């Protein structure tokens, strides 16, 4: 029996049931609270903040807390000015509904999936209740990802329509548009690519905005000079099931033409579709595995 197993067994024997299991997770699974606090307090804007009443799981009474929604995380603390939050809800796979309760303007946040729980909250008035429900429903990573995919598709459609009517050299669209825009935003994850060198490292720090450009460049420098070879290499590196779209030749001016950028976007998009399709298959496989394991443990 491993050290961890002995430890778990001891905990469960002393605190049986959910409490013991929660304790184990609290000790064994690290959440890196400081990282979450930093995300909350750093310069990027919060999405919503206000007082809500939170039903305590232990006592059943409602406690007034200051809630802050940022991204797919719902933090809570005693007061607005507190230095770090008391706790956080990760809002993935949850549904939000009105609910009946002793408290007025109550709503619940319910999680599906194994062990998913329901958390009750209440707002101070109806407008706040509706506003919070709406915000929480659209806070998930999955929802935002869907929006981004949809808008990216629309963007490409508009570009190709525009290109159809305007000669390419007069296209107002900057192929580095997205990367430059992202670079102009000061916060967010940043990427640092190192040059290879024996002594120390030359670090060209760039932020997420330049990611696409940088990763394209790194692939390019790995390949031969000929543009055609480079584009072929990019295509073959990515597992694309469908037939590869034609990429026009481009001059060695160093800039990636808009058409290639769009095509690469399309390739990324196909990858996402493939991943989603694989996910379907895997989730079915996972279910089978889980059922097998459940059967084994009996």
């Amino acid at each position: 029996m491993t050290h961890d197993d002995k430890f778990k067994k001891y905990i469960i024997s002393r605190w049986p049931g959910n409490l013991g299991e929660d304790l184990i997770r609290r000790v064994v699974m690290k959440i890196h609270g400081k990282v979450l606090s930093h995300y909350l307090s750093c310069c990027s804007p919060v999405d919503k903040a206000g007082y809500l009443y939170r039903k305590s799981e232990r006592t059943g009474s409602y406690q007034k807390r200051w809630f802050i929604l940022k991204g797919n995380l719902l933090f809570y603390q005693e007061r607005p000015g507190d230095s770090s939050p008391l706790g956080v809800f990760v809002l993935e796979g949850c549904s939000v509904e009105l609910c009946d309760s002793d408290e007025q303007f109550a709503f619940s946040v319910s999680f599906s999936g194994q062990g998913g729980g329901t958390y009750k909250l209440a707002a101070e008035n109806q407008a706040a209740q509706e506003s919070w429900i709406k915000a929480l429903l659209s806070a998930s990573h999955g929802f935002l990802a869907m929006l981004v995919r949809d808008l990216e598709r629309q963007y490409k459609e508009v570009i190709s329509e525009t290109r159809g009517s305007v000669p390419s050299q007069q296209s107002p669209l900057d192929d580095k548009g997205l990367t430059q825009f992202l670079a102009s935003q000061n916060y967010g994850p940043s990427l640092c690519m190192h040059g290879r060198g024996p002594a120390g490292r030359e670090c060209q720090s760039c932020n997420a905005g330049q990611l696409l450009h940088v990763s394209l460049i790194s692939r390019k420098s790995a390949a031969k000079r000929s543009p055609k070879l480079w584009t072929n290499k990019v295509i073959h590196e990515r597992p694309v099931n469908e037939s590869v779209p034609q990429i026009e030749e481009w001059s060695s001016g160093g800039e990636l033409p808009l058409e290639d950028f769009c095509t690469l976007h399309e390739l990324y998009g196909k990858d996402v579709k493939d991943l989603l399709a694989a996910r379907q298959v895997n989730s079915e496989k996972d279910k089978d595995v889980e059922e097998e394991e459940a059967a084994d443990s009996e």
Partner: protein
Amino acid sequence: MRFNERELVSLSRQPSERAAELGMRGPKKGDVVKKRLVKLVVNFLFYFRTDEEEPLGALLLEECRVEQEDDQAFSIIFLDEAERKYLFECDSQQQCLEWIECIVKASYEFMRKSLIFYRSEIQRMTGKDPLEQYGISDEARFQIGTIPSIQDT
């Protein structure tokens, strides 16, 4: 900090954007590289001991720096502190680059900014706001450049 553990563990079990066995080294002095199953789900990087169901930990991939360390390794740095630098060793340069790209693009903030960009470009080119059909045009979180004040609603 309290968090909804059960839901987070459940999240770690879901099909991921990317998962692989990588060498992982923690940030503390004396930490060594250990083989871990690393799994990217939404904007969290979960890491497991191989063959264990419950994750050892979860790293939130926001406000962090991703650096390529050498050919096949990358690191994630939080709060710009050396004590919060996690190193990951891959099997190939390509795998390494793919992980870096995935991690940066998984960030909620990265996605938000991409959305704002596409929205403003589409609006500029067509005169229409693509978010109107979703009923979320007014939401502060999708506006360009403004930092909404914290409102007590």
